[in-house]
């Protein structure tokens, strides 16, 4: 009842100086909006990364051709096709922690199904590839080792291909032309969505590795056995850190790389790639956090300023209240509550602005965001905290007022 009275009073005096109050809380609005964007992006990134880590399949390494030194990639990956199918076989055979080593060739191709065409990634793989990624078939079936050995003209397609080339019709048994060869669709993979680079993982056609060698994707003049990538699956998460060395040893030996000469391949951890991406988010988050901090500080000072003005304008009111029995703590509570309420209004406006910004800005950058009900709580908690901190001084000043002023104000 009494606290309701205080809220009523606070709202009344805020309303009495509407424009001034709104201007005073601008900083809070921006600050809270920034806080919410930070949280939304951080939440989005976190959710995305855990989604990716799930979709990447666990314990995966990529071995790709190309030199690498301590500073990172020196040579564009894939310019020299130094890895071969036999390298993949050797890794699976010679490195104890390697469970699967799946070779992969691929390239962007325009493919045709009857009168529709589509530009997509055409990849040549062996059945181990699907096993390593943990990808499941939704319709039809995957191809097997025999079909790879017999250079079968068959294809397993992603959901996007099924949608774009067959327009909702049943793709199984239909033909897709890639270069001058026709492939019959034997399977459609379960939908996977985007990967961490934003690429549609369902926009892909898989054909047997052997068949892919027919066209230029997988063919190197120097080395007809060359592959673009070897996907390595280790037996456990722990071996991820140590297995890289063992893989490098085997490949250096096979490629006759001696002493301090650079590797002609590089080993990447998929989770590390995802985490590198996470670092970009974190930089953005840090920047916006700084903005949030500064805005809240400026906003808080703005509110403190307006509250100090309000206190000195209302000496008479305070004097009257004191004369009729208000205790200093009653006055303190009244002004503190007013500051908190003012900031909370700013926080709620910030919630709206932050929500709008979090909708527009990160999605324009192609970033995932997560906005949930907890954000309203964060907005209210942050803004009322700012209100409490910056309301203390004005409230204290009001509470210290000498009630005798009331008889002097005539």
């Amino acid at each position, binding site marked *: 009842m009494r606290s309701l009275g205080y809220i009523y009073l606070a709202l009344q*005096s805020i309303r009495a100086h509407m424009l001034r109050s709104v201007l005073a809380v601008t900083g809070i609005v921006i600050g809270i909006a920034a806080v919410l964007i930070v949280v939304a992006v951080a939440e989005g990134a976190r959710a995305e990364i855990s989604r990716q880590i799930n979709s990447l399949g666990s314990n995966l390494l990529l071995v790709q051709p190309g030199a690498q030194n301590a500073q990172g990639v020196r040579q564009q990956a894939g310019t020299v096709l130094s890895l071969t199918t036999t390298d993949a076989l050797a890794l699976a055979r010679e490195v104890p922690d390697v469970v699967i080593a799946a070779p992969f060739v691929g390239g962007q191709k325009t493919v045709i199904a009857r009168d529709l065409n589509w530009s997509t990634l055409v990849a040549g793989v062996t059945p181990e590839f699907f096993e390593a990624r943990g990808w499941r078939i939704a319709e039809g079936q995957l191809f097997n080792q025999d079909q790879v050995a017999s250079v079968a003209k068959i294809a397993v397609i992603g959901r996007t291909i099924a949608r774009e080339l067959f327009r909702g019709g049943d793709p199984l048994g239909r033909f897709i032309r890639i270069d001058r060869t026709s492939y019959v669709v034997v399977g459609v993979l379960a939908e996977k969505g985007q990967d961490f680079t934003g690429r549609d993982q369902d926009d892909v056609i898989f054909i047997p590795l052997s068949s892919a060698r027919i066209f230029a994707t997988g063919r190197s003049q120097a080395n007809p056995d060359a592959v673009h990538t070897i996907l390595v699956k280790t037996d456990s998460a722990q071996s991820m850190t140590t297995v890289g060395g063992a893989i490098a040893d085997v490949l250096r030996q096979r490629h006759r790389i001696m002493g301090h000469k650079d590797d002609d391949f590089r080993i990447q951890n998929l989770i590390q790639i995802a985490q590198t991406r996470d670092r970009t988010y974190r930089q953005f988050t840090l920047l916006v956090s700084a903005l949030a901090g500064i805005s809240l500080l400026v906003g808080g000072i703005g509110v403190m300023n307006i509250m100090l003005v309000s206190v000195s304008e209302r000496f008479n009111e305070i004097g*009257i209240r*004191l*004369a009729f*029995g*208000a*205790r200093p703590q*009653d006055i303190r509570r009244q002004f503190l509550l007013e500051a908190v309420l003012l900031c909370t209004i700013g926080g709620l406006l910030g919630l709206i602005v932050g929500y709008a910004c979090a909708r527009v800005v990160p999605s324009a950058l192609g970033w995932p965001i997560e906005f949930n009900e907890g954000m309203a709580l964060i907005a209210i908690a942050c803004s009322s905290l700012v209100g409490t901190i910056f309301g203390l001084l004005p409230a204290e000043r009001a509470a210290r007022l000498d009630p005798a002023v009331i*008889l002097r104000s*005539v």
Partner: protein
Amino acid sequence: MTSLVALEHIHKQHRFGSQSVHALSDVTMQIDRGEFVAVVGPSGSGKSTLLSIIGCLDRPSSGSYFLHGQDVLVQSRRRWSELRNRRFGFVFQNFNLLPRLTALENVGLPLFYRRDRLRNPIARARAALDRVGLGSRMQHMPSQLSGGEQQRVAVARAIVNEPDLLLADEPTGALDTSTRDTILSILAELRRGGLTVMLVTHDAEVAGRAQRTIGLRDGAVVDDSKTSCTSSTSTVSEF
């Protein structure tokens, strides 16, 4: 029987910088229950200072003050708030209503700050407004009321907690004679109901209604006289 208010050798110095003004010097007086006391004196003689010390709005520099025989000056700040809330009712020359509250809410202000919960504070505030004849203007804002009506609201606010002592600092100073008389008759009515009233005035007419007149000059009591006839105006000639 102990007096309602007993001041002994009260001094009050206002200090600002190196300057110091002796607003009250060696004031000793008693006020008994039911009295109607007028305080008169030239401007700057310390009338308001006296009122603010009696009403626990300000502390004397030295001396002692007993309210119902109890030493006021040893009480805590909290207790002083409570005394202001329950023992005193203030009326000011410029009404001092809170502009953003309705008449009823203004009257309810002392109830809002009561430590104990009243069962029906609104009825209580309404009753106080009825006593000053403004029962029909409860929802009016101060700006919608005339000066005389505002002062009546202020009187209702001063009496809503049934104080021991009504302290009025030139309550009719800002009013014309007819509204002044309305206020004075309300005060007279309250006094008949047993309320003790102490008012500061420059107006001989108003002082003449009082039963006792205290004259101040340069912070000292120079006159303290009882008037036998409460309606006479001729006995006051001090100023």
